[in-house]
């Protein structure tokens, strides 16, 4: 499982399973435990659902189900809970739409096992995070990359970025919005190119 280094340092996060969570506990839990599983979840959905155009909506619905259930009672293992929710969701969806899902009911164990093979050594987690971010940044169009770098690396305000780049404030906002959206998909989903691990 991929680790996210800037999350989960609050001591309050480690409440025991089974307990109810407040909104902020649930948020912290979701960021720390569920979002790092996104690459695994998408892999599972792609394998078990034919229509690719539905996948983002399916992911969103699964997240909502996971989040709501977790607020009532914190799951013991986020990974098996997310995969179980995904499987049940696909089965429901297949029933509603009278589609026979491919493998939906059976493939869940094998994905869970596969995922262990990806687990990076903990000592390289920090490096992996930086590499994943870098890979994600590299994939952005030049302007989007520039606004993110100016905002998050150089620490400029929106107005300062507009002045430096000689574009309107609205253009800065638009670039940033699309840049963040694209970054989130790359960053949360992609494994690092193994050639970069050396």
């Amino acid at each position: 499982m991929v680790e996210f280094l800037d999350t989960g340092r609050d001591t309050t996060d480690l409440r025991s399973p089974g307990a109810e969570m407040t909104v902020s506990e649930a948020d912290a839990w979701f960021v720390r435990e569920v979002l790092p599983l996104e690459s695994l979840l998408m892999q599972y959905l792609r394998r078990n659902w034919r229509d690719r155009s539905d996948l983002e909506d399916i992911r969103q619905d699964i997240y909502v189900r996971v989040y709501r259930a977790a607020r009532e009672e914190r799951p013991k293992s986020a990974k098996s809970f997310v995969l179980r929710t995904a499987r049940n969701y696909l089965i429901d969806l297949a029933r509603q739409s009278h589609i026979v899902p491919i493998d939906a009911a059976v493939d869940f164990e094998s994905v869970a096992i596969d995922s262990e093979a990806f687990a990076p050594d903990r000592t390289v987690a920090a490096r992996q995070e930086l590499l994943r971010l870098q890979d994600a940044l590299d994939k952005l169009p030049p302007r989007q990359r520039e606004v993110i770098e100016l905002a998050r690396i150089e620490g400029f305000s929106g107005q300062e970025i507009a002045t430096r780049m000689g574009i309107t404030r609205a253009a800065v906002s638009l670039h940033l919005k699309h840049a963040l959206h694209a970054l989130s998909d790359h960053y949360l989903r992609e494994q690092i190119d193994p050639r970069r691990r050396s």
Partner: protein
Amino acid sequence: MTETSRPTATDTDLVAADWVQRRNLWTWTEMDQAEFDAWLAASDANHIAYLRQNVVWNAAGRLSAVRQQQSMRPGTSAPKLGTLLRSVAAAAIVAAVGFASFVYFSHPLDATYVTPVGGHKIIALADGTRIELNTDSALRIRGGDVRHVTLLHGEAYFDVHHDGTDPFAVTANGYRITDLGTKFSVRASASAVRVSLLEGSAVVAPVTGQKAHRSALLMPGDVAMASASKLTVEKEPAASVASSLGWRHGLLIFKDTELADAAAEFNRYNTRKIKLEDQAIAHLKINGTFQAENSELFASSIQELFGLRVIKSGNDTMLSR
């Protein structure tokens, strides 16, 4: 997916990304806040989309320390982040293993102070202010302006040299803490800022927008928790605030602390992680003072005290009944 009126997940994600950049980079008014609150509350899907986009925003902030080093090389103008990052990432690991702390300079007057896991650094500023950086933290001083510092992530303690005409301010996760003659600590995590006040007083307020809406005046013993959507202040006994600063002396001080929380604290300071194999032991109460970097000693004390089993596996120390 059956309701035609529902926005697609991609639309929701884009709106969330827009809120993240609006909140962080532009003037933020009470009207913006009200609009944002209404949007967040409108559906769990919106709430989750915001969390998800915000994680990426925060993660991108971690690249700042890396960028500092590359721009310090003479003769390179506007260097690319790409290739250098890989070597710096490797260097960060070496540093983390060696428990060293290091400083990057870019502009002669810009400085970013970084500590690795287990690190601790004292920064004495020209004006007499003293800053202590805790484990896995980064602090930026831009343009030599020592009265305005930014905590990029992690935790720091500030013993401020007070100057009524030039107040000292710390920025972290969209909030600004302004001193009125103070000793305080600031901890920035993924989604929140925690400010504990020891002496004097300070004001916590969002960096942009109308301050009156969400700001607080802190007095000794006050602990403020500020997140994207709210700011709360709780009073804690002086002893408890002082205990939370045990890290300044390399100590972790627990009083009726649950084992799960104590283990999480140790894990902030050590690359060898303590894991609870058995959730039944998560609620065991821990009392005592421990050396933050000596999680082995902690594990063996707990082992004896509660008769637990300790198994080392790779980089983990597993505790179970």
